[in-house]
């Protein structure tokens, strides 16, 4: 059985009576990649800090590798965890190699390991240049190299692809897949929704410190009852006449918007038409899912706000 690397039970954090994070439940097994999505200030970074043991939870339980991350026992676990903070700027006057050597030494490794990591992220050509001469993408690669020190069993990456060009982004996701196959669990925080889908096992959507949804993309799609868009070609006239297909036809978008449950029926029906020469099927994207859950949250949120002002003693 796979071990659970991270477990959060009703975990929350409040600063001076402001809830940054409220009752989060999460189980992250070994080798799983979790995507963490939400607006700025939704509590993504706070959640990462809780898992890292930099801050302690004001409510609920946090367990990483079976121990509370702020406790003494968690000390030696720290070299097993890699973290890439958002917007980190490394010591500008040091060279890339010097920066990385400092961090590798602090984790108990040496300069050779630092060189190998720089090679891995494609920075070996610039390792003797000062960080202040680096481009944004190069700095991000340096940050990633730092997070990869010692092949961590748990990786927390806050906006890892910001500033990376498409090729570098692709390379980054390849590395993520590689680490995953080696059994590392990864929490990926990102604003950039397209492209993330195929690399995550599950997604969690946060808003205002609250957990709106968690599950695999398929689960979330089913839960949200978002439609699959099916775009047939060559049969437009026939579709409108067909009693079953016409129900789903959207005239403005020139495609069929079908609930997940009716997908196969509709496809069978379409294939009966001789004139059909092509068909493209696209399930709801992560962006659509995200918008669905966030959109759902907004009205509720206003309601809750007015309630909580009434009962602030709770």
């Amino acid at each position, binding site marked *: 059985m796979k071990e659970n690397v991270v477990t959060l039970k009703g975990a929350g954090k409040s600063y001076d009576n402001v809830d940054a994070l409220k009752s989060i439940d999460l189980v992250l097994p070994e080798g799983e990649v979790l995507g963490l999505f939400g607006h700025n200030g939704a509590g993504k970074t706070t959640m990462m800090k809780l898992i890292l043991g930099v801050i302690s939870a004001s409510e609920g339980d946090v367990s990483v590798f079976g121990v509370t991350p702020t406790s003494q026992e968690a000390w030696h676990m720290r070299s097993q965890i890699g973290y890439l903070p958002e917007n*980190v700027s490394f010591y500008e006057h040091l060279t890339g190699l010097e920066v990385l050597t400092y961090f590798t030494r602090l984790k108990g490794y040496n300069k050779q390991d630092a060189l190998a990591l720089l090679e891995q992220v494609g920075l070996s050509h610039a390792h003797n240049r000062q960080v202040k001469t680096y481009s944004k993408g190069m700095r991000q690669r340096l940050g990633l190299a730092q997070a990869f020190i010692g092949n961590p069993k748990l990786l927390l990456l806050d906006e890892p692809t910001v500033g990376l060009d498409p090729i570098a982004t692709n390379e980054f996701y390849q590395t993520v897949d590689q680490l995953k196959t080696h059994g590392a669990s990864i929490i990926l925080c990102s604003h950039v929704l397209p492209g993330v889908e195929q690399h995550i096992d599950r997604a969690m959507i946060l808003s205002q410190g609250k957990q709106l949804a968690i599950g695999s993309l398929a689960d979330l799609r089913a839960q949200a009852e978002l439609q699959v868009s099916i775009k047939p070609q060559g049969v437009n006239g026939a579709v409108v006449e067909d009693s079953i297909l016409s129900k789903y036809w959207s005239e403005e978008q020139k495609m069929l918007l079908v609930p997940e449950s009716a997908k196969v029926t509709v496809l069978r029906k379409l294939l009966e038409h001789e004139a059909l020469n092509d068909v493209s099927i696209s399930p709801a994207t992560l962006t659509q899912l995200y918008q669905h859950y966030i959109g759902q949250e907004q009205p509720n949120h206003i309601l809750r706000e007015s309630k909580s002002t009434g009962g602030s003693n709770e």
Partner: protein
Amino acid sequence: MNKVFIVANKEFHDGLRNRWFVSITLIFAVLSLGLSYYGTVVSGSIGVASLSSTIASLASLAVFLIPLIALLVSYDSFVGEQESGTLLLLLTYPISKTQLLIGKFVGQGGIIALATLLGFGTSAALLSYQQGIENVAPAFTLFISSAILLGLSFTALAYLISLLVNEKSKAAGLALVLWFFFALVFDLALLAVLVGTEDVISQHGLTYIMLLNPADVFRLVNFAALDATDVNGVLAMTIQTSASPAQLFVTLLLWVIMPLTIANFIFKKSKI
């Protein structure tokens, strides 16, 4: 490798790299050589001044320069890393806050200590060449070691500032205020009280009040060992009754340990 040593090594090399070390050493060396050889110009003659008046001028100079430099080197030590995000990152590493603080202190304190030793050591070396090492060594040992403690004390105070504020510019401002207070305002205020009132503060009491300022403790250590004729001002009054050099050294040491301990306490309590 020990975590404290890794941090200390990095901070020390940072000090060497951004030329703090070279500049401080040069400033100290030039000034101390100048004072040793041309200190008598003001009294109308050119030549080597007496040892005690040399030490007196060096101490009056060091008491302004060393705290200022120590504060400048260290004021952004924590707030700077907090602003750039590396402090948060370091705290997720297997290194404790105390280890990080001590490591920084050893590294940056090392820069100050070595610069003081080399800078003032050059004039000590030249003077002992002329006047014989047995005459020069005791006074200069006292002077240099107390100067190093003075520097370390202000490094620790700089950490306190760096941990109390969350903006680099505020830390810089506060560091200047602190320097101004300990180097100038404290003595002026004390003098004003002495002149303006009668018998409010006894000679003994005065010494104790001066122990509340690390810069004054440094002055007391050095001037107590000199001929009283070379010293004037508030200090002249206190010299006769002042505590023994050993007691003063312990006080100066406390001025290093206490701010560092408080800084460590604040660091541990701080929320990043």
